[in-house]
């Protein structure tokens, strides 16, 4: 049964890349966004920590 599922009626070469690309894009967008936010917040903490943050 598993083989049939993976084979996708002979269209495995099209269905799986489509879904895998979707997953890849979702992961790439979310990871890059979160990592960017963390890095910037760390940088802000240093910048504001170093001096008294005004208004």
């Amino acid at each position, binding site marked *: 049964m598993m083989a049939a*599922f993976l084979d996708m009626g002979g269209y495995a070469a099209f*269905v799986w890349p489509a879904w895998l*690309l979707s997953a890849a894009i979702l992961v790439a967008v979310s990871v890059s966004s979160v990592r960017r936010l963390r890095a910037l917040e760390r940088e802000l903490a240093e910048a504001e920590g170093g001096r008294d943050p005004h208004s």
Partner: protein
Amino acid sequence: MNWHRYASPANFKRLSDRLLPWAAGGAALFLAAGVWSGLVVSPADYQQGETVRIMYVHVPAAWMSMFVYANMAVAAAAALVWRHPLAEVAGRAIAPVGAAFTFLCLVTGSLWGKPMWGTWWVWDARLTSVLILFFVYLAYMALNAAFDEPERGARASAVLALVGAINLPVIKFSVDWWNTLHQPASVTRLDAPAIDPSMLAPLLAMAIGFTLFFVAVAFVRIRAELVERRLEALRHARVAGEAAAERT
């Protein structure tokens, strides 16, 4: 109602901390349901066979490419008309996400078209319109990054977002016109088959999943933009501070 208070990173952080978990959790839930129903439960199409499963990512991606652009156009209007600081930042933050969905729509469209027509790219009216929308996203991001001063880039690209929003229907109409003119009888439109209920469920699940994903990522990216804007201001202040120190 003073929206301005959300423009400061701290306030916006509180807002996003409350809503982000719900959006991210919802997205995970709906995407899981979509994958399960799309790949396993729903039947193959009597005509297209298993390739119809590509539709469950292709069509939601198309919807998202337009939904994100609509958000950008609204943010652009808010930025230009009310000079709202949050709106200026939002456009720049979500454009790459919209472009990513548009790219996904194009590639999955090509993967869907290949088994049916034997070519990787079909000049189908809708696919071509999505291609042009992709160019508009690229133009928006290029213009946004083309100025030394981020605020100048944000406002210039906001004008482009609105000009794009007004022109997209005209472009869509002209592409449809062009498509019907050159319509060889044999190539049927790249149409989703008549959606029967069992296929609607995964489609909606994926669409809602993508939308909630977009909301979650938008919160994260807008927060990042606000923090970056704050850093920019601190750097300016330090430079101005130095200049003042030199003068005394």
